[in-house]
C-alpha cells in the first residue's frame, strides 16, 4: 500500500463507516447462523419431499411422506401417538409456571441461610437432562424404586410407571418438570425482588391480602417473568428428546414417543433409514413451533415499537 492511497481510502471508509460497520460486525455471526441454522431449515423442507435412506441417491416423491403421516394419523399409529403426546407435554409442562411461582413465594423470605436454600432448590436445572433421566428411571424402577417404596408405605402399588403405556408419558413429564420448575422459580424470585413495595403497602391499606393481593397487585408486576417462563417452558416441552431417549427410548411399544424423538428414530436410530420421512416429521414439529415463534416475535415487535 503506497503512502498516497491511504488517506483517500480512509476518507471513503470514514464517510461511509457508519453504514458499513454494522455489516462488518454482523458478517461472521450471520454467516455462521445462516449456514448452520437458517439454510438447513429450508433444506429440511426440501428433503421432506424425497425418499432417501441416507446412503444412495434420493428419490423425489412429492408429498408422499406427508400422505404416509396422514395415514399414520388416521390409523392411530406412531405419528398419532407422538402428536398426542406432544400435546400432553405442551399442556402439562406449563404446570412448571405455577409450581415455580409457588416455590418462589415460599422462598421469598429473608431468614438466615435462605440464599443457600434458593441455590439448592435451583440445583436440578443445572444438571444435565441425561442425569435427570437416569435419576428418575431409578426413582420409578419397579423392583427398588423410591416411588414404590413410598407407595407401599401407604399400602399401594407397585406401579411400573415407565413400563405402563397409561402412565409413561406422565412419568417422563414429571421428570422434566423438576428442572423446569426450578427455572421458573428463579425467574419469579428475581421478579419478586423487583416488585414495587409501595404498591404492596398501598394494597395493604386497601385491605388486600393473600390471594387477592397476589392476583391483583403482584402478578401484574410479574408479567415479564411470566412471559419468559412461558416462552422457555413451551420451547422445553417441544424439545423433549433427552429424557425420552434416556428413560424409555419411546417405549413401551412406542407409547411415549413425541415428534422430536420419533423423527430421530425413523432417520438415524438402529433401524431407521428414512431421512425424508424424518424430515417431514420435523417439518410438522417446526410448523407447530412456528405458531409460538410468531407469537413471541409479535410480542417483541409490539414492545420494540413501544420503546
Amino acid at each position, binding site marked *: 500500500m503506497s503512502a498516497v492511497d491511504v488517506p483517500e481510502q480512509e476518507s471513503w471508509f470514514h464517510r461511509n463507516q457508519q453504514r458499513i460497520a454494522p455489516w462488518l460486525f454482523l458478517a461472521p455471526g450471520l454467516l455462521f447462523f445462516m449456514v448452520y441454522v437458517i439454510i438447513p431449515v429450508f433444506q429440511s423442507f426440501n428433503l421432506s419431499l424425497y425418499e432417501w435412506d441416507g446412503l*444412495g441417491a434420493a428419490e423425489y416423491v412429492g408429498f408422499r411422506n406427508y400422505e*404416509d403421516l396422514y*395415514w399414520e394419523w388416521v390409523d392411530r399409529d406412531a405419528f398419532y401417538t407422538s402428536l398426542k403426546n406432544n400435546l400432553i407435554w405442551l399442556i402439562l409442562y406449563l404446570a412448571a409456571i405455577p409450581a415455580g411461582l409457588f416455590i418462589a413465594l415460599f422462598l421469598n423470605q429473608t431468614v438466615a441461610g435462605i440464599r443457600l436454600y434458593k441455590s439448592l432448590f435451583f440445583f436440578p436445572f443445572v444438571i444435565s437432562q441425561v442425569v435427570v433421566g437416569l435419576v428418575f428411571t431409578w426413582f420409578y424402577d419397579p423392583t427398588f424404586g423410591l416411588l414404590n417404596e413410598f407407595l407401599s408405605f401407604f399400602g399401594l402399588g407397585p406401579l411400573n410407571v415407565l*413400563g405402563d403405556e397409561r402412565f409413561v408419558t406422565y412419568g417422563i413429564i414429571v421428570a422434566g418438570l423438576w428442572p423446569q420448575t426450578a427455572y421458573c422459580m428463579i425467574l419469579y424470585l428475581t421478579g419478586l425482588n423487583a416488585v414495587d413495595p409501595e404498591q404492596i403497602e398501598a394494597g395493604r391499606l386497601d385491605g388486600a391480602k393473600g390471594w387477592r393481593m397476589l392476583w391483583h397487585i403482584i402478578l401484574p408486576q410479574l408479567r415479564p417473568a411470566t412471559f419468559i417462563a412461558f416462552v422457555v417452558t413451551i420451547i422445553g416441552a417441544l424439545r423433549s428428546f433427552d429424557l425420552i431417549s434416556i428413560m424409555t427410548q419411546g*417405549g413401551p411399544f412406542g407409547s411415549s414417543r413425541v415428534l422430536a424423538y420419533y423423527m430421530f428414530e425413523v432417520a438415524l436410530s438402529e433401524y431407521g433409514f428414512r431421512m425424508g420421512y424424518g424430515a417431514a416429521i420435523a417439518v410438522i414439529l417446526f410448523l407447530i413451533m412456528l405458531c409460538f415463534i410468531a407469537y413471541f416475535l409479535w410480542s417483541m415487535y409490539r414492545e420494540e415499537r413501544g420503546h
Partner: protein
Amino acid sequence: MHSIYKRTTAALAMSVALAVPAYAELTGELRIFLDTSNPAPRATMEAMIDRFAAEHPGLEIETTVIDREAYKTQIRNFLTADTPDVATWYAANRMKPYVEAGLFEDVSDLWAEPEIAENLASTKGAMTIDGKQWGVPYTYYQWGVYYRKDIFDELGLSEPTTWEEELANCQKIVDSGRACYTIGTKFLWTAGGWFDYLNMRTNGFDFHNQLANGEISWEDDRVKQTFANWKQLIDMGAFIDNHQTYSWQEALPFMVNGEAAAYLMGNFAVAPLREAGLSDDQLDFYQFVAINPDVELAEDAPTDTFHIPANASNKEAAREFLRFVVSADEQTEINNGSNLGQLPVNAKSSVDNDKFLQQGFNMLSSNSPGGVAQFWDRDAPAEMAKVSMEGFQEFMVKPDNADRILAKLERARQRIYDN
C-alpha cells in the same frame, strides 16, 4: 471404546523378504474396523490380526475397535467417507441396505474358490443377495433355552421336547412361585427371539422367510396360531413381570436369583450367567420344544460377518484377510471357549469342548432339519423388524390386544414392502 494400534513391521519385512523367495507379496495399508468391543472378543480379534500380520509382513495394518452399539449407526458414515478395507457386520437382510446402496464389495469370486465353496456351504445362503455373495461369516451361535438345572431337579422336571411337556413343566414352575422365563424386552429384539421360535415351531422355516419377505399377511390364521400359542404361556404367567423395563442384561439376575427358571437366549448369555456365579451343574441347555409335529425343527443361529466396503482402497489385501479369517485353523482358534466361545463357520474346524458349544453344534448340525434362520431383525427389513418387534413387546404385555396389533403390522407390511 475406540483404539487404534499400528503395526509397523518394516523390520520384520526386511528379514522375511530375504528369506522368502519372490512371489507377489501384499503391500500397503490395510485398515480394519471391528465392532467386537467387549474385552474377550476384542482380544481375540486383535490376536487374530497379529497372526495375519505375521504372515504378511509387507502390510501395515491399522485396527479400529468401535463400541458395538455405536457401530450400528456409524457404519453408514464410514462406508461412504474415510472408508476402511475390512469391516464387521451381520448377515442376511441386515446387510441389504448397504448392498443395495452399492457400498459392499461383491466377493462372489471368493465363494467360487473350492476352499470356501466346500467348507462354508452352510452359510452361503445368509451371505447371498441377488445371487451374489457380499462378505464372509466368521462366527455364529445357537439360540435355545438356558435353564436352572437345580430348580428343575428340585421340582422333579426334565427337559421338555413337546409343547404339552413344556406347558406342564411351566405350570409346575409357576406353582412353585417362580416365573418360567426371564426376559427383558426394553430393546425389543429379545421378544423377536420368542416370536421366531414360536413361529418356526408352529409354521416352519419357510413360513418364517415368507413372513420376513412380506409375502404373508400378518392377519393370516397361521400367524394368529403362533400368537395363540404364545398367549398360552403369557396367560399362565410364564414370563417375569415388568420385562418391558429391562434390558437383556438386567433380566439376568432373575435367573441367577432363582426367581425365574430359564432364559430363551443366544449362547452369549452363558458367559455373564457363569460370571454371576452359576456353576455348570446349575446351568444347562435344551432345544426349544416342538409345537406342530408336522413342521421340521428349525433354529435361529445369527451369523456375524466380515465385509469389504466398495470404497476400500486395498481390496487385494482385504480378500486375503477374508480368506484367512474363514480358514479352518483360524476358525477353530477364534471360536474356542477361551476366545469368542462360539461356533466356527468352517466345516473342517473343530468345536470347543465347552458343554454348551457342543450341544449347540450338535443341535444345529444334526437336529435342525428345517433350516437355520438368522434372526428376526436380520431376516426382516429394518423397518418391519422395528415395528413388528414393538408389536411383540406390546403383545407380551397386553396379549388381549393381539388383533389390533396384527392389524397394525399388516398395515405396516403393505406400506413397507410396497416401496
